[in-house]
Structures are given as C-alpha cells and as structure tokens.
C-alpha cells in the first residue's frame, strides 16, 4: 500500500462521514462538490471534508483508492458511497438519510 493509500485509509477510517471535494464546504470550487455539500448540510449531518485541490496526491490517489473517476466522493463509516449523483439519487429515495442516521 502506498503512502497516499495509507493516508486515505486513515482519513476514511477515522471519520464517520467524510467528503472528498474541490474547495471547502463554505467555498466549494465545483458545482458537483457544491451539490454534495448542499445535500449533507440539508441532512444536518456532521462531516469531515478534504479539499483535494490542496493535495495533489490525494486528488489523484482517491480516484484509484475508490476506483471512481470523479470528485466529490463520499465515505460513510469507511465505505465508499458514491459521488454527487448517487448522493442525490439516494437522498431522493430516502436512503442517504437512513445511512448517515444509522452511522452518526
């Protein structure tokens, strides 16, 4: 396991809900990240965020770590949930609320 993978594993392992995104929740730098933040804020869930624009290793590393080509990426309790499209689909189906509630 590379150093970057170990760092990512540490982040997803030590935070119940963590969003890898471009920018910060207050200043998202991409529409998709902004949408992901809006969903989490709407759910009122506490989450950690990682700004991949501040860390090129994580920006590239997270894509292979998750086998997922885009950012944002949401992890809940160490499990990869998906990007903003899946978050929106799960939110509309009531599944995301359930997932974060049972993991809070």
């Amino acid at each position, binding site marked *: 396991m590379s150093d970057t993978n170990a760092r990512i594993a540490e982040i997803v392992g030590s935070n119940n809900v963590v969003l890898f995104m471009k920018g910060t929740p207050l200043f998202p730098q991409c*529409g*998709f990240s902004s949408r992901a933040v809006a969903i989490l804020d709407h759910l009122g869930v506490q989450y950690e965020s990682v700004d991949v624009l501040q860390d090129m290793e994580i920006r590239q590393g997270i*894509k292979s770590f998750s*086998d*997922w*080509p*885009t*950012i944002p990426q949401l992890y809940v309790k160490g499990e*990869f*949930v*998906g*990007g903003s*499209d*899946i978050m929106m*689909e*799960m939110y509309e189906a009531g599944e995301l609320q359930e997932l974060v509630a049972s993991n809070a």
Partner: protein
Amino acid sequence: MPMPAKDIEALIKAALPDAEVTITDLAGDGDHYAAHVVSAVFVGKPRIAQHKLVYAALGGRMGGELHALQLTTAVPN
C-alpha cells in the same frame, strides 16, 4: 473540451446495447450534460456498480474530457 451528445450516447450504447439513453445539454454549451441511462444490465446491481458500467463505457473520459456529466441510472419498468 466539448464532446457532442451523440458521441456520449454512442459510447454508452456500444457497451450497453439495450440501453435507453437520454442526454440533456444542461448549459447549452456542449460541455455540461445530464445523462439518464436505463438498461436491463443494471438489474440487481448496486448504484455504484451501475454508474461504474457507464463510466467504463465512456472509456476513461469521465473526469477528464467529460468533466460535467450528471448521471442517473435505472432499470426498465
């Protein structure tokens, strides 16, 4: 780099021949799309797996050439 909607549809259909693909040009600029893909191949698969099948069909363009593609997937009614 803009990519025509019909190219996106063609790539998806090449990999998922039964797919019904609906593409919406969100900003009218040929660069921000929403795609809705309905395929029997998705039956019984979790959402992540469904999206990965479409990303695989797009052959690595997702996240690069295709920055802004909102994706929703569904199984046929």
